[in-house]
């Protein structure tokens, strides 16, 4: 049973896809089907609409989410009414979405349902915390298309990444692009005395000098970096940006004389919005990026079929990805791995 054992070591999991139609929902169903419910209480939700019969954008068939007896799930009022299973309503939460209030229910006869839960990072975090009162051991979040934010370690500790032909139909490009994302997820965690203090900071760009003093550069985000006149890397061992890390800041540090002495730090990989090219130049000049919090990437799943009908060779794809990533890669649809 690939990677299920691994998932059970964590109390929260998010499943994210690098593109629409990369088999994320199948991956979710695969996991839900195999979880040992007699050992663990599981709660499932999803960012925005998910579990619809047809893909809202490309009108291709999408697998539905099958919920087993005993599972908890949270979905919007409108979708709750359309469920094709028997469930016991246990809570009307204070969260709202465009489809009504978010409800939580416990499945009493398994079946299929539409799942669309809270949509912002903050409300997801509240949802995860709120599940505690039902004695939930594992919370699973089905992430949104090309949005990695739900995989932020601030929300869930482990993640499964879905990629596939929909992301790119050229195997080499697909491998390369996926590899870059996996590399970002795998960035090393900062080991420094200033780490705890940095975790408490909520906005702006900050520095830590060689004596361990934390300095506020007094700019609201890395986007405003061009307003600085002096070289911020001078005398610093760490440059920390709370918000998004963009090419601009990365290039600024890459161009500085002190690049080899300074470490660039971000909250977690979901805050990194840099192009691969800029990152490679940065690294080639001796730059380092580290994170304050790290997610555990449990597995990578692939879907070799693109919505336009293009099909990649599953075996070659898995093999190439596996070589490049150094991680197990699964084509769940083709290989109906044993239970």
């Amino acid at each position: 049973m690939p990677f299920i054992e691994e998932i059970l070591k964590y109390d929260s999991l998010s499943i994210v896809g690098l593109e629409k139609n990369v088999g994320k929902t199948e991956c979710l169903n695969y996991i839900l089907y195999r979880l040992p419910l007699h050992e663990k209480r599981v709660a499932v939700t999803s960012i925005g609409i998910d579990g619809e019969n047809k893909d809202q954008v490309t009108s291709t068939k999408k697998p539905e989410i099958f919920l087993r007896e005993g599972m908890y799930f949270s979905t919007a009022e409108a979708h709750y009414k359309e469920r094709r299973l028997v469930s016991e309503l246990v809570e009307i939460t204070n969260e709202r979405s465009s489809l009504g209030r978010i409800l939580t229910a416990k499945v009493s006869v398994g079946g299929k349902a539409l799942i669309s839960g809270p949509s912002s990072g903050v409300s997801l975090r509240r949802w995860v915390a709120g599940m505690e009162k039902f004695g939930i051991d594992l919370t699973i979040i089905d992430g949104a298309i090309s949005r990695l934010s739900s995989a932020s370690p601030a929300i869930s500790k482990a993640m499964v990444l879905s990629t596939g032909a929909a992301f790119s139909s050229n195997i080499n490009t697909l491998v390369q692009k996926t590899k870059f994302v996996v590399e970002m997820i795998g960035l090393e965690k900062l080991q420094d005395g200033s780490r705890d203090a940095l975790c408490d900071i909520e906005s702006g760009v900050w520095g830590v000098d060689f004596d361990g003093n934390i300095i506020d550069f007094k700019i609201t985000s890395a986007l405003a970096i061009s307003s600085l006149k002096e070289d911020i890397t001078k005398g610093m061992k760490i440059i920390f940006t709370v918000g998004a890390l963009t090419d601009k800041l990365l290039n600024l540090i890459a161009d500085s004389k002190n690049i080899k002495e300074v470490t660039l730090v971000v909250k977690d990989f979901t805050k990194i919005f840099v192009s691969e090219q800029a990152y490679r130049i940065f690294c080639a000049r001796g730059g380092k990026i580290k994170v304050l919090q790290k997610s555990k990437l449990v597995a990578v799943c692939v879907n070799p079929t693109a919505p336009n009908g293009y099909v990649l060779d599953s075996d070659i794809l898995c093999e190439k990805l596996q070589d490049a990533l150094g991680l197990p890669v699964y084509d769940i649809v083709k290989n109906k791995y044993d239970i």
Partner: protein
Amino acid sequence: MYDTLDIMSPCGRKMLLQSTMMTTKRELDFHYRRLNEIYDKDCAKIAHKLMCIKDIQTTLDRLASGATLDDIELFEVKYLAIVSGEVLQLLQEQKIIAVGLPHLEKVVEILDPDKSNIPSFYVYDSYSDELRMVRKQMRDLQGNGEELPDDKRMELAALLQRNADLELEIRERLSGELKEFADDLSLALRNLSVLDILIAKAAQMKKLGLCFPVIVEDGETFYNGMFNPAVKEMLGAQGREYMPVDICFEREPVTIIGANMGGKSVVLKCLALNQLLAQFGFGVAAHDCCVNLVEEVILCIGDEQSIVKGVSSFAGEILAINEVVKKMRDGKCILALVDEPARTTNPVEGTALVEGLLEVIGTAKGGFVLTTHYNILNDKVKRYRVRGLRDGAMDYTLEVTHCGDVPHEAVAIAESLGIDPQWIELTKKNLNN
């Protein structure tokens, strides 16, 4: 004041925002008796329960009209009945009689056939043997969600349909049985909201040091140790102390004179705020007080100038005051509070206008308080004067005075504000001439 009120439930908040000003002694006495009872009790546990209350009036209206409720609505009803029952028990433990709640055990019974007494709901198997059987078949057929062959899928679809039909039948039956409790449920929701507001008001009184007012009709209004909660809090944050004031008035108009920055406008704002707090049944910002009921509170303060409407500061103000005069002459009971009327015109005519205003108001019902810098000679008014600068510090105390002479402290105050020394010097020279 609304912002400092910790109301727990959305329906409590809605009820408060929809409430109207109370204008009879009977209503207010009843309200304050209830508030007084809550004030003396520890209601932390009840407040915690009220946090869970949702506004389900629409659902209850549907129930009363005979509609069939869906799962979610039945859940809401059951939830309300359970929480209401828990609050009722807490009220009985604390011996609180200010708010009564109907007994809803029967509602819980109908919606909890398994007697689990937890706030969750679905159409339970125990409602019907056939339902139980259909669900068992579904479970057996479905397993853990493996792909099913076509014939099995059809069979499952049929079972799912049968399940839905049975659920609908049961929900129809339950809605019918619950219909007779719709009024009780609405009453429970309403009284829980009332309770929520009372608890929040009592907590606010303790937090801000507010008092219970004595309510009178056509009598005297007095405040001992009156203060403005917002200003007091702001000063407190700066480590400074608020100086409360005493004031008392009846039918005759009141004028307040005194130095600039002597807190005259603050007094007017406090009077307006406290009158409203009292008539909306809140604690009042004073050490102790007696409040005469009015039908309306009008506060004329600030600059009414509007370039768009083509109204100057003077015109805007005079028109606003004219409204007060009209209403008072029509016999409406009003508390009118006017800040420096006719201040934007020449002192000669300004004084005459204020004198005229005081005469025309006379001893109308309600109350009339104005602040002014003019020397008012009318002897049918009650005069207060801000004690003013004492050893360089402002003494905000209001004292009754019999002469209309206004204090001459403007230059000294301007000087303490640090304005240009040459300006001050030349001003003093002019005064001496």
